[in-house]
């Protein structure tokens, strides 16, 4: 009966933020910080570069090496080098933007709004199509739409599917995967936070608070992991798409 008094805030209250001016709201501020933090760190790392990396330089080199070894090489293969800056940008920008889900006073992941993931997905989409055309010309579209080895009679079925999945659905699935995960995590943390506040107000059921609060702590830690995992997943998918366009025969 008492729990019936718990009221979840309207969705508007947890995903929309007022503008500071010129359409610059909390999401814009998080985007600015997600740009500024890696820029400053990598600038410091580059200017104090030493043979034995330490501190910020170690962090920057580890990030770059991680993207090269775990994302670019497995996803793209031979000729991955030109795409490392894009993949590093994807990873650090998305990861830092996601981490604001658990940073006090922000507590809103950048990618719980559809705008940023859509931008990243469209960049990846334009990049892999551009790479495919640049390296393979019109043959790229032929290889994608008419996969070799498929009986010609099946092309009437395979070609529309490939067209839809590769050129239309892929950017949206790429964006929605990131957006939906972060929005779900955000709503999860909001739910546990609201529950904690409500149970705190209802002194009779305060005994439940430790469990609810522990759930909030555990899911906060979980969402920190999700922040990095989603950034990694987005980056490696972009690498796989680019690799598929660069070496369509594979």
């Amino acid at each position, binding site marked *: 009966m008492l729990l019936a*008094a*718990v*009221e979840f*805030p*309207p*969705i*508007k209250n947890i*995903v*929309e933020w007022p*503008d500071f001016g010129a*359409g*610059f*709201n909390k*999401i*814009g501020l998080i*985007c*600015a910080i*997600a*740009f500024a933090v*890696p*820029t400053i760190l*990598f*600038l410091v*790392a*580059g*200017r104090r*570069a*030493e*043979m034995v*990396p330490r501190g910020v*330089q170690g962090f*920057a*080199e580890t990030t*770059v*090496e991680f993207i090269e070894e775990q994302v670019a090489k497995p996803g793209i293969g031979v000729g991955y080098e030109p795409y*490392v*800056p*894009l993949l*590093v*940008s994807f990873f*650090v*920008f998305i990861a830092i933007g996601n981490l604001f889900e658990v940073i006090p006073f922000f507590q809103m992941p*950048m990618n719980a*709004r*559809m*705008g*940023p993931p*859509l*931008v*990243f997905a469209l*960049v990846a989409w334009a990049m892999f199509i551009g790479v495919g055309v640049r390296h393979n010309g019109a043959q790229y579209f032929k290889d994608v739409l008419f996969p070799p080895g498929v009986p010609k009679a099946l092309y009437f079925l395979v070609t529309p599917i490939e067209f839809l999945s590769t050129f239309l659905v892929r950017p949206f699935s790429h964006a929605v995967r990131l*957006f939906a995960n972060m*929005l779900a995590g955000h709503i999860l943390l909001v739910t546990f936070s609201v529950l904690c*506040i*409500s149970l705190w*107000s*209802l002194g009779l059921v305060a005994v439940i608070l430790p469990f609810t609060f522990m759930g909030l702590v555990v899911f906060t830690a979980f969402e920190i992991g999700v922040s990095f995992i989603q950034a990694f997943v987005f980056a490696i998918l972009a690498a796989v798409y680019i690799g598929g366009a660069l070496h369509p025969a594979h």
Partner: protein
Amino acid sequence: MPEELTLAELLALGEAEEGEAVEEEAEEEVPNPVLPTGNEILWAAVFFFALWAMMKYVLLPPIQRTRAERAAKISEARDAAGNASADIATAQADYDATINAARSEATSLVDAARAEADADRAEVMAAAEAEVATLRANAETELAEARATAMSALRDDVAAVAVGAASTVVGRDLDASSHRSIVDRILDGGDA
């Protein structure tokens, strides 16, 4: 206002105060949380493209250069270590060859010295044996001469005694020189 009111109840009270007209207006303005908004797309695009450009032209090149220099240095040090190992192996081989040559030379020197010593010993032994043979021959000659001299003197003495004794027996003087041949024949084992 009662103290036991919950946050939710307070929120509900606040909302009730706004009036039905306001609620209807708010319900109409509820945004779709899935649809992107233009301003957020704009700021995300601006800052992401800025970061991408910075990564490509400013941030990553010095880091990549440092990593490449480190990799080259490590490779160089590894090559140097490999060369040092090769040098060590060469030095070890030279050392072994020198040691083996020295051992061979020592062995040949020892063999030569031993052969020379054997030859010298044989020569010395031969000379000593020759000298001993000479000395022995000389001694035998001297002994033979001494024996002959002694035998001659003994013969003379025996002959003189025998002739003297015979002279006493026969009562007259006998010529020793004429009876000497008899005495010699008796001493040589012949009959008188």
